[in-house]
């Protein structure tokens, strides 16, 4: 049992905390939907099932965080998930991009899970229940997601089980996927005024620059083990301020279709 929710007294901090939770939920919702697009067309039936399972879990996590934001409002979590316009979403742009190929989805999953693990750690130390307890529990499920990504990535990139190198081999495709994903991944660390407020209130205990350092310390050894080169690139962000690509508009249209057919329905 988690402790009862204690409302943050300061409205500015409360709004900033809400924004943080929406980033988490929107991240999980968008990547969950993208992963679910592999259902039925994965590279093999086993990985198809596993990726679909990961997709379900990400959507489940999204729901838990939407519920935290919605509070006692009945149907509020669904309205947050499906009833907002695309520019109200606060997910990092990386997570809304189409799958493109299995190697892109695997690279994205690896980069995202390293970040997600770090962020759940920060949420677990935010001092706000029940969010902190929730974050500590979810970390256990995310561990498999990270393992799935790194195990697949090592094999796609040919390490340590032989050489898949060369310029046309699988590793070249993985490198191209990393080159495409990396600048967007740096968008995880985009900040708004909310970050300052949360840091000032002690709810957030690590500034974005340090988060990025911790994240790079986690992903760089994996990428090096896979003989992949980390590109030098400026962040492609905007998501935390609601600036998204047309890919989110397409994804949004598709994932909200059922909800829009009857917004008042109880599921």
């Amino acid at each position, binding site marked *: 049992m988690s402790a009862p929710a204690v409302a943050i007294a300061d409205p500015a901090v409360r709004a900033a905390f809400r924004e943080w939770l929406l980033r988490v939920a929107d991240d999980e919702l968008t990547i969950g939907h993208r992963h679910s697009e592999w259902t039925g067309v994965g590279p*093999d*039936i*086993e*990985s198809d*099932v*596993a990726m679909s*399972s990961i997709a379900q879990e990400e959507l489940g996590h999204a729901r838990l965080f939407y519920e935290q934001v919605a509070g006692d409002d009945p149907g509020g979590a669904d309205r947050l998930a499906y009833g907002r316009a695309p520019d109200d979403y606060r997910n990092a742009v990386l997570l809304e991009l189409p799958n493109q190929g299995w190697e892109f989805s695997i690279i994205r999953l690896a980069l995202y899970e390293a970040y997600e693990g770090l962020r759940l750690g920060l949420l677990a130390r935010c001092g706000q229940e029940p969010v902190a307890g929730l974050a500590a529990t979810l970390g256990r499920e995310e561990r*498999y997601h990270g393992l799935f990504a790194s*195990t697949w990535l090592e094999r796609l990139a040919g390490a340590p089980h032989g050489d898949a190198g060369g310029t046309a081999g699988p590793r070249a495709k993985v490198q191209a996927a990393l080159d495409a994903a990396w600048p967007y991944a740096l968008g995880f660390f985009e900040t708004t005024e909310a970050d300052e407020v949360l840091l000032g209130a002690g709810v957030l205990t690590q500034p974005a620059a340090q988060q990025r350092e911790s994240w790079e310390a986690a992903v760089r050894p994996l990428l090096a083990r896979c003989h992949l080169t980390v590109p030098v690139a400026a962040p492609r962000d905007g998501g935390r301020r609601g600036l998204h690509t047309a890919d989110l508009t397409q994804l949004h249209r598709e994932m909200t279709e059922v909800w829009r057919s009857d917004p008042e329905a109880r599921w």
Partner: protein
Amino acid sequence: MDESWVQTLQAAPDIWAVFLQARRRDAHVYVGDVHASDAEMALLLAKENYARRDPCVSLWVVPARDIRATSGDAAEMFAPVTDKSYRFGGSYRQQQRVYRGGYQTAAADGDETR
């Protein structure tokens, strides 16, 4: 040596047999196969394909081609010819406890008493 009753399973090299242990001290039970390039990948895929619904505390994976099996025509060796009911001993709980267990992996070697 007569090995006519021993056979190797006919399986592709990327087929791994999956054994699931539902509770500590239970035997690992064969539940199906996965296609995988190596043992780590086989365990990774087995986890989501066989342990996502039912209880599980441990998985084994074994290359299906490494399994040795009795051949089909050996089946009659298993059929009793005379009454063997004196061997059954189904009501002996100690015997049941000994039969359970089998090989334990490091993680499953708890301090539970039998």
